[in-house]
């Protein structure tokens, strides 16, 4: 009997030898972005200053201080109340458009931004296109170039025929006419034996931009490495200012390659050129794109996602030009993005001279 018991014990021990902590560590859940850095409750210092100054004491704060001492959980409770309040206010956003609006108090977090009237009217950006080609395919036609200018004009003014939100979104009142237009000012063509240019601005060194402070320069050149196009944000070096797009992703006719054959790569890159960030903020939930009416997200969307695609507890705006979806599945900017883009045209702004300002 003893032997059996001992054996059973040894057996059990044997089974557990080397058993390690099983807990798997998942990344911390991200909180929504609410700035609580200025939050405080204790007021001892404040109170003593007040009482010495004018003899008055804030009795309420005295009571609070005492309560905070007595009740350890109170701080957290009050912190949570403040957090929720700030979140609610942030969600309500700025005044809604007349006649429209989301009724922000629904708690859905939908923010509606009013397009700012900056008095500049329609801003027309002249464009220089540099076609740098190593074969005849890459030497794209004037028709292909014109098609890209057309797409830019449609996309930036909500005149694109494929604007078609699925049922159930709260995005309809966010779609914007940014009142930014583009005019082709000139095309330069260069034959070059280099078959791919990379993303270190080599093509711009070889073929420098023309008057970049007043013109958007676009290089159409084979980038390679799986990159469709890349941009330079405002505030960078003038000698490398502009946008580079590989030829088969430029325009919507001719030498174009699906699913990036509707000219949206340029729309996306020009968005960056005009100071827009990726809609997911290039980070997790808390990382912002600095635009209030785009939903929070923790990563890019690819392909043609269905609605809703939920991340960070809200539906992503996958049809925004600043996501990573296919050309056919992106078709809008928001009012907030419009305001952010136009801000750089204001007098003193990073691209004021582009708008003749």
């Amino acid at each position, binding site marked *: 009997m003893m032997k059996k018991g001992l*054996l059973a014990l040894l057996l059990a021990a044997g089974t557990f030898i080397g058993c390690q902590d099983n*807990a798997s560590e998942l990344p911390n859940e991200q909180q929504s972005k609410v700035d609580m850095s200025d939050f405080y409750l204790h007021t001892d210092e404040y109170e003593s200053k007040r009482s010495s100054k004018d003899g008055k004491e804030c009795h309420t704060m005295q009571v609070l201080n005492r309560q905070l001492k007595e009740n350890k959980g109170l701080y957290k409770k009050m912190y949570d109340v403040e957090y929720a309040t700030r979140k609610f206010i942030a969600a309500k956003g700025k005044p809604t458009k007349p006649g429209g609006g989301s009724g922000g108090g629904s708690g859905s977090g939908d923010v509606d931004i009013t397009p700012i009237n900056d008095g500049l009217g329609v801003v027309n950006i002249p464009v220089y296109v540099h076609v740098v080609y190593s074969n005849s395919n890459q030497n794209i036609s004037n028709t292909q170039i014109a098609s890209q200018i057309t797409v830019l004009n449609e996309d930036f003014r909500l005149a694109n025929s494929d604007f078609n939100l699925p049922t159930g979104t709260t995005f309809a009142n966010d779609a914007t006419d940014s009142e930014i237009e583009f005019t082709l000012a000139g095309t330069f063509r260069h034959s070059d034996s280099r078959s791919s240019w990379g993303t270190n601005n080599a093509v711009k060194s070889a073929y420098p931009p023309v008057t970049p402070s007043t013109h958007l320069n676009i290089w159409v050149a084979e980038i390679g490495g*799986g990159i469709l196009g890349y941009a330079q944000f405002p505030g960078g070096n003038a000698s490398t200012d502009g946008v580079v797009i590989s030829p088969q992703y430029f325009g919507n006719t001719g030498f174009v390659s699906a699913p990036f054959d509707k000219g949206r790569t340029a729309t996306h890159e020009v968005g*960056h050129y005009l100071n827009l960030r990726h809609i997911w903020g*290039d*980070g997790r939930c808390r990382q912002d794109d600095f635009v209030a009416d785009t939903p929070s997200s923790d990563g890019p969307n690819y392909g043609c996602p269905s609605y809703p695609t939920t991340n960070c507890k809200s539906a992503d705006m996958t049809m925004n030009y600043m996501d990573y979806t296919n050309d056919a599945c992106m078709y809008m900017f928001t009012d907030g993005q419009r305001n952010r883009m136009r801000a750089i045209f204001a007098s003193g702004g990073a691209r004021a001279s582009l708008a003749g300002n």
Partner: protein
Amino acid sequence: MNVLKKISLLILIIFSNCTAQEEVNALEITYSAQTRGSSLTISYNSLILELKTNNSNKKIVLNKNQKEKLLKEVSKITLTEIANLKAPTNKRFSDGALVGKFSILKNQKQYISSEFDHGNPPEELNNLYLLLESLLN
């Protein structure tokens, strides 16, 4: 005889448990790099190292030596810190680079790194990245 049988059974159980533990605690490494229009994944699991891109697929079986090199490289990394590493460059913010990221499963815990420009990881992850690259070439 009976006791001997029991003891050998016990030993068998203990050792099979140990082996099972080793498999359960196996190291998995995934390096992913993505952008609009292209993606690349390097994955390591149970001696197999695989590279997948939009239009290619490469699989190799590592020898014991190579596996040891890989394990050694991973052991040099403070895995609990990789989510907080700062990227040396940010070209991916304007699409000038694919978005790179490491995901490492060790001792049943998953560690996901912060993002960085593909090809230019933070210093702490660079040696691992270079090793994976060299193993695939």
